């Protein structure tokens, strides 16, 4: 089913062959997906979040299922910056698609170190800055809820790293616009919208929270309406190019994000349930464009704003 439709897109300075990327934390460091397809079939690959030092992650249970949703509290299990560079990067360099490295920190300094460390490496398409982690100094509230901190982190990363920088926002804010603007002011090239929503599940038999950490991040179809609205809002304010993600399971879901103005989309939870999901979604987008007589992907990006202009 090759419709020869041009699926090219870009997120600011990042050129993508197609708009579907895998989301951080749901595609490991890429290796496992090669059992299913060639990674160059993907628009891009956003690898598991790394931290300065290796982390063994949170105690288990780390996941809980909710209605059309998944709560996770993996706790950033990862080999650390050096481990990543030594164990994972060589393979990723061999991959013929855009690889973004998701970085997480618990202090401003963490972000700085990670950006500096990655700046020295070849073969990385860019950095995705995860600002949804709790800020230890700030009493555990996520960095991403404070526009000031988002500015600072972005600015630090920008100064250390010349390449493509995308800031991944948390949906858990009263107003996303100031946060998005802060990332822009800090020098981000694009925004990823959005990360998970804080959520909890309680086991009524044991009368205690299911997750060992109590609460975690809600992803999957349940959060799609929330993330989609945020994408629409940010695009309306014309702040930065947006990667839309949250609950994308099918091409139809991805198309909603593109119509809302996302220039590319991320697929997370869906890949866990079906590793082929990103490819199915890519094909489905081409089918939709073809069926509706669009010439290329760009024609539909943001279309919902024109059609719903009075909103």
């Amino acid at each position: 089913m090759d419709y020869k439709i041009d699926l090219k897109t870009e997120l600011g300075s990042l050129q993508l062959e197609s708009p579907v990327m895998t989301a951080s934390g749901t595609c490991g460091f890429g290796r496992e997906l090669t059992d299913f397809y060639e990674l160059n079939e993907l628009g891009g690959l956003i690898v598991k979040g790394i931290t300065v030092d290796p982390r063994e992650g949170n105690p288990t249970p780390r996941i809980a299922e909710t209605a059309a949703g998944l709560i996770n509290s993996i706790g950033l299990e990862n080999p650390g910056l050096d481990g990543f560079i030594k164990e994972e990067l060589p393979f990723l360099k061999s991959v013929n698609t855009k690889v973004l490295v998701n970085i997480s920190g618990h202090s401003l300094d963490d972000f700085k170190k990670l950006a500096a460390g990655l700046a020295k490496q070849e073969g990385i398409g860019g950095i995705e800055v995860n600002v949804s982690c709790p800020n230890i100094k700030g009493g555990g509230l996520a960095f991403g809820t404070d526009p000031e901190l988002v500015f600072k982190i972005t600015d630090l990363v920008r100064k250390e790293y010349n390449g493509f920088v995308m800031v991944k926002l948390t949906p858990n804010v009263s107003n996303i616009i100031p946060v998005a603007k802060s990332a822009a002011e800090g020098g981000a090239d694009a925004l990823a919208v959005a990360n998970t929503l804080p959520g909890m599940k309680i086991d009524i038999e044991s009368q205690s929270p299911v997750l060992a950490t109590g609460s975690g991040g809600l992803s999957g179809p349940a959060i799609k309406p929330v993330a989609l609205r945020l994408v629409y809002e940010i695009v309306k304010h014309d702040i930065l190019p947006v990667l839309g993600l949250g609950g994308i399971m099918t091409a139809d879901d991805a198309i909603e994000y593109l119509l809302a103005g996302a220039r590319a989309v991320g697929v997370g939870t869906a890949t866990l349930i079906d590793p082929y999901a990103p490819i199915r979604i890519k094909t489905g987008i081409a089918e939709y464009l073809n069926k509706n007589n669009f010439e290329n992907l760009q024609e539909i990006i943001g279309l919902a704003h024109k059609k719903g202009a009075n909103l």
Partner: protein
Amino acid sequence: MAKVLSNKPLADKIFLLKVRFKDGINVKPGQFFNIKVCSEESYDPLLRRPLSVFDFDEDNNEVSFVYEIKGRGTRALSNYIKGDSLDIHGPLGNGFTVDFNNKKLILAGGGMGIVPLFYLAKYIEANNDLTLCLGAANKEVLKPLADYFANIAVELKLSTDDGSFGSQGTISCLLNNSSLGKEVEYDYLFGCGPEPMLGWLQSWLHEEEISGEFSLEERMACGNGLCLSCSCKTNDGNKRLCKEGPVLPASEVMLGGL
């Protein structure tokens, strides 16, 4: 994709599910499958449910599962009937070590932990001496499962918590029993069951200086090594139970570790 051949209760809340795959598959004992339990039109329940292979018929590409209804996922699964198609991933995971020859092997299973031992026993019984120690809550659960083992050349030791079938007590009693341990020299143990049982087995293996391996459980989101929800602490670092497991060396596993 597989077709449901049958899906019938073995006991209260325990079902035997048999499916046929269209394409040839190769299944090792101890591997598992990850099953979607909602229709295509629905995202709820969202995640697949992991189930161990209970039995495998290679000639017909037929896989059997035995599952207990725990929550809405397994309840939904119990509603599938003959002829339905089922979206199944697998076989997944590493499976048990099966290249033993002329060894004296113990297979210890507790509760639903008995399930993966049946295909294992069938697979290795021809070349080895097997002692099966199976325990469960009561006769109603244990008997239908134990009956499956009756046809294979194994020594079967049974216990129930309430003494309604086999001896009363937990699996530890079967292993402490004089016929085991000291007198016979066992070479290896396969264990699967609740964590307290595995903890006890771990100490016992250590004392008796026997090696062995456990099939372990953890909540899984992907079953493909992508999400790290199934990490298990070992003295060789974290292992993904869906990928490097679910079977790990008994001496390596740090139970209750993470």
